[in-house]
């Protein structure tokens, strides 16, 4: 078998050195009654040709977004990832390296993560960032725990514009703590008054901008109200490309930013692996979970990088750790760093303008259709339409034509009749004019 380099001769020699009669003797501690005596119901090994064929057959049963006309967003965004990114992340020294526990031979990974941390702080307008978490939703959950630790309060306000998956992750992680969650109802109009929900027991208000319905709002007034009450403002960012055009959360007064980094450098991958971003103020650094890379020097005075502030983490604090997280999202962070390096300041800003421009143009064309209403006054590259018919069956029907017009709100907020006719549509630079024509045409037909 191609991944197993030991020969029968090797095995015999090794047993000889060990002084064991057979490999079975090495498994003597396994209770005899439990030892498998017959093979499991699994196929035998196979060569690349067969395995490749099997995987390609499974892949062929899927309609890739690139083969369809796709305007899907809602927390995962299809952007063009430059060719160089995938080549670089597949270098064996990146792909097959590990957590940089031995910094002397991990300066590649450590410097990349230091650059990543810097990029995230610049994008979010915050002071420090960690070296990634699993995804945006779990980053939001960690941010809530951070805020509760820092303020020593129990209350958490969850905005009605927060992505339901992120909301549910926060709720699940907080389930057996003494947190008291106040979940605002789904806010399709983008008009909710969260300040009214803040009181002296509020640890944090969690809001997403642009929200899950695409609304963009100025959070500075909310930040002020939070701070007056001694609460923290946690801003969630699901589409990091928006930070190339929209006021940064830090500039609006955010205390912690929890983000999803997938849109930069990482493809859709049917939902994972994605990339959690966490950024905050320097004064909160010791409460921040996850790995952090810091700059230092070696014994020859040369600049180098190390994992630092490890005493927050599970391998030292154990039950008193800030989080149980160990492995994070290293390769996804690398892809993000490379993509953003290629974009640069001008590239990111221009990319963001292209996204917004196409979204504005498409929104105009869609509201020109009879009965279609746009709910968003301000948005980045995603908006919500109210259709004259339920969105879910329409989406199902259009799928057979290879068109994904957007995500029906009912998919993310099931069982709320008022949302049945809502469709959340995202546009990126990957959608060209023919995509827009196809969508407008298909919708026009479906609604006639």
């Amino acid at each position, binding site marked *: 078998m191609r991944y197993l380099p030991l020969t029968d001769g090797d095995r015999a020699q090794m047993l000889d050195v060990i002084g064991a009669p057979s490999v079975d003797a090495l498994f003597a501690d396994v209770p005899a009654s439990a030892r498998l005596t017959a093979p499991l119901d699994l196929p035998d090994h196979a060569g690349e040709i067969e395995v490749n064929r099997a995987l390609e057959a499974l892949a062929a049963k899927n309609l890739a977004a690139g083969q369809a006309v796709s305007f899907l967003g809602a927390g995962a965004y299809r952007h063009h990832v430059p060719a*160089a990114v995938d080549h670089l992340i597949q270098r064996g020294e990146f792909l097959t390296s590990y957590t940089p526990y031995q910094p002397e031979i991990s300066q590649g990974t450590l410097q990349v993560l230091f650059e990543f941390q810097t990029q995230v702080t610049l994008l979010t307008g915050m002071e420090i960032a960690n070296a990634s978490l699993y995804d945006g939703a779990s980053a939001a959950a960690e941010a809530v725990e951070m805020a509760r630790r820092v303020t020593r309060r129990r209350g958490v306000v969850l905005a009605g514009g927060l992505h339901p998956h992120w909301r549910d992750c926060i709720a699940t992680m907080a389930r057996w703590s003494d947190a008291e969650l106040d979940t605002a109802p789904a806010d399709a109009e983008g008009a909710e008054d969260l300040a009214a929900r803040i009181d002296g027991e509020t640890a944090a208000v969690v809001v997403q901008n642009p929200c899950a319905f695409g609304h963009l709002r100025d959070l500075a007034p909310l930040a002020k109200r939070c701070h007056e009450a001694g609460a923290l403002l946690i801003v969630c960012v699901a589409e990091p490309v928006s930070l190339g055009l929209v006021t940064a959360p830090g500039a609006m007064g955010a205390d912690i930013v929890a983000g999803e980094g997938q849109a930069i450098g990482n493809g859709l991958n049917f939902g994972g692996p994605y990339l959690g971003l966490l950024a905050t103020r320097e004064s909160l650094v010791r409460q921040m979970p996850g790995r952090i890379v810091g*700059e230092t020097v070696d014994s020859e005075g040369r600049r180098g990088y190390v994992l630092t502030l490890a005493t927050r983490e599970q391998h030292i604090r154990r039950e008193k750790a800030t989080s149980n997280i160990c492995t994070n999202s290293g390769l996804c962070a690398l892809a993000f760093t490379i993509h953003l390096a290629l974009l640069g300041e001008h590239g990111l800003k221009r990319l963001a303008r292209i996204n917004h421009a196409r979204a504005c143009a498409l929104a105009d064309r869609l509201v020109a259709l009879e009965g279609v209403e746009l709910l968003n006054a301000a948005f980045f590259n995603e908006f919500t339409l109210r259709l004259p018919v339920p969105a879910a069956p329409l989406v199902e029907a259009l799928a057979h034509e290879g068109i994904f017009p957007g995500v029906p709100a009912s998919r993310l907020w099931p069982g709320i009749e008022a949302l049945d006719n809502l469709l959340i549509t995202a546009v990126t630079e990957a959608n060209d004019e023919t995509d827009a024509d196809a969508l407008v045409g298909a919708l026009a037909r479906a609604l006639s």
Partner: protein
Amino acid sequence: MSRRPRRASGGTPPADAGGAGPDAFTGTVSGNRALEIDEPLLFEQGDPSLSGVDLTEPEAFEERLGGLARDGAIGLPGVSEPQVVRHFTRLSAKNYAIDSGFFPLGSCTMKHNPRLNERTARLPGFADLHPLQPWSTVQGALELMDGLAHWLKELTGMPAVALSPAAGAQGELCGMMVIRAAHDAAGEGRRRVLVPESAHGTNPATAATCGYTVDTIPGDARGRVDLAEMKAKLAPDLAAIMITNPNTCGLFENDILEIARAVHDVGAYVYCDGANFNAIMGKVRPADLGIDAMHFNLHKTFSTPHGGGGPGSGPVALAEALAPFAPVPWLVHGKDGFALQESAAGPAGAAIGRLKAFHGQMGMFVRAYTYMLSLGGDGLAQAAEDAVLAANYMLAALKDTLSPAYPGYCMHECLFDDEAFRAFGITTLDFAKALIDEGFHPTTIYFPLVVPGAMLLEPTETEPKAELDRFIDAVKGLMARLEAGGAERIKTAPHYAPRRRLDETRAARHPVLRWRAHGAPKEGAE
């Protein structure tokens, strides 16, 4: 302080004894060393006018940002594609990796990462699927998830698998949350969990997140859970025991059947940290050992790449009694084919909730599934045997050179303490740094905490015997040098790595966690 404060490792490196000899031109002019090129930060390069992508400015249009247009510079550097490719290529040259050589990091299972996995994961039919596409357009993806779950169920003998946890630690969280939910549903307010003192730090951290108090059980002289001590802590308020099997000392818990029986007798569950599953896959099924929940690390056992620290994937196998509480989404199969039950309603009404957005680490599912099909059931069992054989070979070959922590055979990893070299004034850390100079990644050091100066060595099954022998020879050679008076050289190792020892004290006392432009004011701490 605790009564036995742990001896420190790391910190400020010793001042280097070597000075400039009579020949002043010992270094290079540039500071580079041939193929190893010193690379500044991205932020120290380029020009704001540059970009590595060509994008066309959209025609003038009216913005709809509600007055929230970003003001001023973000502060990102601008570089061309050639500069980016060089930058990251040079950085990659400073990394040791599995592809470079032996990586015997105990408890991490640093086995070869097959490249076929990378090809299949990149098929557009997997890589380019949006998680919220209609189910009819992603039947192949769901079928793959079902196939992966089938393999995991077969290997464990357990009836259900929760696929969504993002890594091992999240898998543990999932398993313990499910146990908590199961007891809560039965109206039982059990709040205590037993954790062996040798456990990985994620175990007690996880238990605390689920609202449990952690009760530590000591190990015995043979490196296993002390059965009598464990039994003394059994009571009706016990929710679960969290065990690792094989354990963090690389040893199989012989008493596992008795442990499981006793724990079940008081109505508690057995959670198994499956990080070491590589030793037993295809040889014994966790269900047959009395285990009720076990997480996998696909990035350890099933060859998905470690990538510099993730992404991982931590599915959890569950016993019948725990299955109803698994987090959403649940894979379901109806008349229209596969779908995912995404909300905690209907059949998933008792689910604990959701641990991450969307469906799980699909990219890692494709890779792990590809690996499983490649090795097959027969190959996985062979891999486990070779892993255990290789570790015992290392143990046997080194037992007179280094000091084994426990007697007898090991499983897939072997554990040494620092007895062999302490007398020379050398610590485990020093020895590890010397191994770096020899061209190897060191073993895991200072874990498990129960062994002083621990060195946990896991060779895995994908090492050729010649590589194992190279390592053995290097260790023997280092010990011989120590005996011949070479301690100083080892104390100041590594000498040949891209960096010498780094000042971790300085990094922690004065944290510099990001680049700042020259003269840019440091944001005031609140």
